[in-house]
């Protein structure tokens, strides 16, 4: 059974006529990375906050791991869900170690276990252990967000809610944190609901994109599927789905070779540039163009698997985006 089941979840704020979230239903599997995307005011934050009951739904039902969230005290529920927000919300009067220890303390872990966990988490988010004694004010924005992530992971929740966690960071810091979040996700298999305004961030992180507009879900599918077949013009515009490079960045060299039937010649060409099967096609296209449009060999473990030419990239693009794998 799905890990999270939302059944006609609705939130109408007092004094409002239009619901902020309107009859939203969806299912999310354990370990899925779901990115919520949509214009400002469409209800992403409201939806997220109904999951940890910072907002109580006006109507509808929400099950996590088969249990109705209203069947347990809100505080007990929240201690089992990691929560990360853009402003970090770190406690300025507590040191990094004390910030990280908050939820384990609420759960009455013993001292030794908490101490060990703090070190483990600092390692995980790649902060030096010497930062334990620092205050949030003594950290950069990116470091603060790492502490925020460590704090949310502290009691090892299986579900993480993240509301534009990297929204206030510069592009380079954001890219590094995205990478680390993916790495952490691959290691820990958390179920993650992640809100962002940044389309590239969404495409990069998401197993599935949940696209909202005016309180409703307009499309909920894999990035590739959403790019290839946007539900309507709104989604197309929101994602820049016509952007060829964006679509290419979701395909790999291996995808292109598979659909091309491996018809390259296998003779060695001396010293020349090669591609890896795992490279994305956007990268591959740039390198093919840079070498004057000549096909580049794809090499894995010293074995040539085939060659990538502009034609192959073009046909991979059309084939992949019309006949989708499920």
């Amino acid at each position: 059974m799905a890990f999270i089941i939302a059944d006609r979840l609705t939130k109408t704020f007092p004094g409002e006529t239009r619901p902020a979230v309107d009859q939203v239903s969806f299912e999310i599997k354990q370990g899925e990375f779901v990115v919520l995307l949509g214009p400002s005011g469409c209800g992403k934050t409201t939806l997220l906050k109904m999951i940890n009951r910072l907002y109580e739904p006006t109507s509808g039902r929400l099950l996590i791991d088969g249990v109705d969230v209203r069947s347990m005290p809100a505080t007990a529920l929240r201690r089992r869900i990691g929560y990360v927000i853009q402003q970090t919300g770190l406690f300025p009067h507590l040191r990094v170690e004390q910030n990280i220890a908050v939820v384990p303390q609420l759960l009455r872990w013993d001292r030794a276990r908490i101490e060990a966990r703090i070190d483990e988490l600092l390692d995980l988010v790649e902060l030096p252990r010497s930062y334990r004694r620092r205050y949030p004010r003594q950290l950069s924005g990116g470091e603060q967000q790492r502490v925020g992530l460590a704090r949310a992971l502290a009691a090892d929740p299986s579900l993480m809610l993240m509301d534009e966690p990297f929204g206030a960071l510069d592009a380079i810091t954001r890219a590094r944190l995205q990478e680390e979040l993916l790495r952490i996700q691959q290691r820990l298999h958390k179920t993650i609901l992640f809100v962002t305004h940044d389309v590239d961030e969404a495409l990069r992180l998401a197993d599935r994109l949940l696209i909202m507009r005016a309180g409703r879900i307009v499309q909920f599918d894999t990035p590739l599927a959403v790019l290839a077949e946007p539900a309507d013009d709104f989604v197309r515009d929101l994602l820049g789905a016509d952007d060829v490079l964006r679509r290419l960045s979701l395909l790999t060299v291996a995808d292109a070779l598979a659909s091309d039937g491996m018809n390259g010649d296998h003779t060695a060409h001396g010293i020349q540039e090669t591609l890896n099967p795992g490279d994305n096609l956007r990268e591959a296209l740039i390198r093919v163009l840079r070498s004057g449009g000549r096909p580049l060999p794809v090499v894995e473990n010293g074995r040539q698997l085939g060659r990538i030419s502009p034609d192959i990239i073009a046909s991979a693009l059309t084939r992949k985006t019309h006949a989708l794998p499920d």
Partner: protein
Amino acid sequence: MRYLIDNFPYVLSLIGQHLVMSGLSLAIALVIALPIGIVCARVARLRNLVLGILGVIYTIPSLSLFVLLIPFTGLGLRPAVIALVAYAQLVLVRNVVVGLTGIDPAIVEAARGMGMTAAQRLWRVELPLALPIILAGVRVAMLSIIAIGTIAAFINAGGLGLLLFDGVRSSNPEKIIAGAVAVSALAISANGILWLIEQRVFQATRGVTGTKN
């Protein structure tokens, strides 16, 4: 100055009385103001009403408030402390409210989102973060208590006001000067000590101290 030197033990005992009266008043005032302030910070509709009432109390001339209390309490320390507690409420409650409502909403949301109960949030997050502003209120309240406390001598509550009233009655400027100097010294030291505490707390709660605990 000669009076002060000749009667030093007596002046010292009056300082002691004044300090007991002020300290007692401040302590009681805080015990009352904290819960009122916490409730007012939570319930916006109560806020203006309560602060309005406390503002009115604050404007009653102190001498008349002392005298008005006599029929109910008799003379002495009791009406003095009651009046001083009442005066201190405005500053204390207002600073508790300002301190609590001024906390970054993202911090409160994080505390809620992590599963703290309302009480845990208050004790572990909100009160520590509001503490510098609350302490600033305590300092201002203490200074006005010390000043207004001199008038309490008029209703037999003792303290340094005795020197002032006696000095006026017997046309003894030496006594008046001794009283004034003693009150000022008391107020200045109280202000300094409380200010130092406030600064330390401010640094600790804003996370700007060094690495020592």
